[in-house]
């Protein structure tokens, strides 16, 4: 069953976007495709959540954006990770892993 954005933890989408963008400059459409493919159709991110999130991250300085030509010759806005964003991603990954580990160990012990 696909998980929609409302079910995602607040802040998790930001982390996922930062992670996808580490692979290289990419536009919004590409990000939504990658999220879907990599999560094997589990995470379906609505455009209504994706674009505000992208702009928020850009405004915070975690993403850098520039306009460029896409693979089909049209103008598109490409996002890439800034140095600040890289740090933030590291921090968020660390926090996430800690949380996930904690939740997992609770689930295991309570079995």
């Amino acid at each position: 069953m696909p998980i929609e954005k409302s079910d995602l933890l607040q802040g998790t989408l930001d982390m996922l976007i930062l992670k996808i963008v580490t692979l290289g400059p990419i536009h919004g459409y590409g990000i939504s495709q990658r999220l879907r493919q990599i999560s094997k159709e589990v995470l379906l991110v609505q455009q209504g959540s994706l674009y505000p999130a992208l702009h928020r991250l850009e405004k915070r300085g975690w993403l850098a954006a520039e306009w460029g030509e896409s693979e089909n010759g049209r103008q598109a806005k490409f996002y890439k990770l800034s140095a600040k964003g890289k740090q933030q991603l590291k921090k968020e990954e660390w926090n996430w892993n800690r949380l996930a580990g904690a939740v997992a160990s609770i689930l295991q012990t309570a079995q």
Partner: protein
Amino acid sequence: MPSWRFSFRKRTLDPQYDSELRFHIEKLTDENIAAGMTREEARRRAVLEFGGAEQIKEELRDVQRIPVLETALKNFRWAWRFIRKSPSFSLVVILTLALGIGANSAVFSAIDAVLLRPLPYPEGDQLMRLEQFHRKVQAPLGRLAPARLEDWNRMNSTFQAITGYYTEDESETSGILPEKVTAAFVAPRFLQVWGVVPELGRDFTPEEQRWGGPSAVLISDRFWRNRFGADPSVLGRKVTLDTSNKFSCAIVGVMPPSFLFPDRDADLWIPTPLGGPYTENRDVTWYLTIGRLKRGVSLQQARADLATVQAQLANAYPKTDADLGVSIEPLKETTVGGVRSSLWLLFGSVSVLLLIACTNIVTLLLARAQQRQHEISVRFSLGAPRVAVVLQLLTEAFVLALAGAVLGLIVAGAASKVFEFLAGNLPRVDEIRLDARIVLYTLICSVVATLLCGLFPAICSTRGNLSNSLAKTGRGQVAGRYPLQWLLVGVQVMLAVTLLAGGKSRRRLCWMANKPQTS
């Protein structure tokens, strides 16, 4: 979207949003065509799938918005909560600032009234004090003979009018009990020079200013109220002066309460008639001399002009006028010049006092921020940008400073009484009062105090690795955390020493101001 929300950069980015979103829709369309749909169908499905583009655009605009008012209100609410949560801490800070800001505003109100404002007469900057001096002896003779005053007034081309006066203490004996009054004997054109008209009645007529003409007197508002009970039919009644030789004069007018010249004790203004037997003597020294410059005439022009006039008089009357020179100074300068440096020094001292108060508060706020490290870290980890946290901490400092400033205004409001008590003979002391300028100054003080006290602790406490401080479970040790706090203590000691050194000069001011002024 509440419409009262202030927005910046609202629409300028719209074309960019459009093309970014359009690109996404086009890619979805391409995808649908590849899946075998017709172009129209593919486009329709893509738009459907994409959802409300307008709504997304509105959200993108929201990201760029800085909701100034909303954030400010929220910060103020939090600040208020913070103050209520720790009343004793807040009270200490507010009282400290109230003293610091209050003392500062009080002295500023004195500086404003005494030094900065023009004299309380219409176009008071045109008023000049003129003196004659002996060129060879270099001793000021100061006071002018009536004949020479008339010569100066007639022959110059830079003054609208020149007049003079001298004061004498008299007994006024028209009432049941004699009363001691200060009478100013004035040369012609007296009110014309001041640019003031009587509140009741009229100025002297030319006849009243001539030898043998009818007697006349203008009385002060205070004398009118005390002696005549503010009787509106006082005009025409007689005042009798009985010190050296008894004479009566008829009241022709009452001056406005703001007219306090030569000083606030003056009750009567009586014309000294021209053409009397003694007024032709060029050796007498009677009048202190005041003139009003013509519009647009500079002090240098007036000095050159009067020097020429006096040179002509030296030719005409070599015996009496040959060695005389003329000095001209702005009346304001001769009135307040003596206390200028003392007042600025006092202002410097209270500013140092405010600085000491601020460093104290910086130390308090730093200690306080230490306790709140956890709260600040939590806020960071929830995604608050540093600027927002700093702004919120500054708002807290500002609310404290504002409360201090309001209390300080009460202190400053009492300042005029304090100055009258401590420095009763300070010139223009009765013009010191609280007004919009002082309120504005106090507000500026509170903003400066906010930045001085708040900025540094706010920046310090939002620095550093937040995930570390979040992970830390134990309480941080306060002692030794900030070598800075030692620096602050050092600064305070330094300021206190400066203040002590300045204290000596402040005592001198009080002594000077209490000394009876001789004009």
